[in-house]
């Protein structure tokens, strides 16, 4: 039986809670894998590590973050069939529909390639004699995405791409029915240059 764990600090790790949920093959009704359910301690560890990485990620030139999105988009395209197959295998939707699932998520990644233009802020000149008045947009910090079973690729991408491009780090909790697509997306994101525990990007 395949056992699916978590993605922590840039690698797949097994769960330690001893609790699991079954993942069915919806076409046959058989259990095809099981996914670890994280404990409070595992979640806290993931969040604390993410908070450490967020400082450097937020300080990264927004264009460099955008370039990670460009590489991520290219990798999603390259792995389109693999992603779609994972979507279909756990969700049950047809392959053409699964490719649409990935595609509509990819389109949000594409918009995030231009994120710096959305993050510029505002300025008033002059706001008074010798006075500058300006507003900047800063990331929230560590944010969470909690996503449903029905779009295993699209909705995680809708959450992660704008959050990351804006300088946040994300704790993604996908539906326990369809965890595999999110784990592959995390791998591709790392390959694109979004690495945890790294201070120079």
């Amino acid at each position: 039986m395949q056992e699916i764990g978590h993605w922590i600090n840039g690698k797949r790790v097994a769960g330690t809670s001893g609790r699991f949920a079954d993942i069915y093959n919806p076409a046959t009704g058989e259990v095809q894998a099981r996914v670890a359910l994280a404990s409070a301690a595992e979640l806290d560890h993931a969040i604390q590590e993410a908070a450490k990485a967020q400082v450097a990620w937020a300080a990264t030139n927004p264009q460099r973050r955008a370039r990670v999105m460009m590489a991520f988009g290219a990798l999603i395209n390259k792995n389109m069939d693999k992603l779609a197959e994972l979507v279909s295998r756990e969700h049950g939707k047809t392959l053409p529909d699964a490719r649409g699932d990935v595609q509509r998520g990819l389109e949000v990644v594409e918009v995030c390639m231009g994120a710096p233009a959305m993050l510029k802020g505002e300025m008033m000149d002059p706001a008074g004699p010798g006075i500058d008045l300006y507003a900047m947009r800063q990331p929230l910090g560590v944010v969470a995405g909690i996503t449903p079973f029905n779009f295993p690729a699209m909705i995680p991408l809708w959450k992660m791409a704008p959050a990351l491009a804006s300088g946040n780090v994300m704790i993604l909790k996908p539906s326990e029915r369809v965890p595999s697509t999110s784990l592959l997306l995390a791998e591709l994101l790392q390959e694109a240059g979004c690495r945890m525990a790294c201070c120079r990007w």
Partner: protein
Amino acid sequence: MQVVNGDKSVVDGILDHEVIQGVGFVGSTPIAQYIYGRAATNGKRAQCFGGAKNHMIIMPDADLDKAADALIGAGYGAAGERCMAISVAVPVGEKTADALIERLVPRIEKLKVGPYTAGNDVDYGPVITQASKDRILGLIGSGVEQGAKLVVDGRGFKLQGYENGFFVGPSLFDHVTPEMEIYKQEIFGPVLSQVRAGSYEDALKLVMDNEYGNGTAIFTADGDTARDFASRVNVGMVGINFPIPVPLSYFSFGGWKRSAFGDLNQYGPDAFRFYTKTKTVTARWFSGIKEGASLNFKALD
């Protein structure tokens, strides 16, 4: 990014964790409201998207073949497991309603239901769990009991070799009324309900009175009707001769009413507002020491 798998205890752990600053959620309406409330109580920013009951109005002047094609795709695609699925068809006038049923039935009978491995001509696959299948079958039964006309019955669907799979055949109801459970609940399965409306205003009122407001559509050849509908309807995403109006990624996605909790939509410009906070600086410089000029043209990093 970290991926943490888990169940409700992980969700609650996220909602109560002081480091987490924002939460984005998509799921059912009761959970969306729960997450929004708990996150907000804990001082977090939250945008939570929930369920839907998306109506498509079909005007007498609509191209009914195109409307029927659209209803098949939007009603049965992905086994109806989409928050932007059309689950209610609202033809205006008895003649339109009869003509629509006449076009829907043969199209439904042609649908190929099967596993994704059976080839690219499969129209849709199984639903997600046995519990989901049981719930859908129960709702179809309630529709029959409450007096709707079950024109196509998908309950008996069987596929050789996949007897234990979570497949549900396509079902079509006619003469559905707003008091019925099949109308009130989001079925999230391959079930399309037809509610007959006497006039455009009646059809519009039905959409307006529904507790959900994710998506809606109108099929018509009349620009004035379409424009009136788009302007007045209290739904977040509107299709005109377009059944699943999920906005492209440079706009943003979000429903109204009980389909969404929070202020900003997902993706597009709203996403950058959601995932950033504004800091406003008022600065005054009394005098400056001018630095020597730098003649090099270089990157800012």
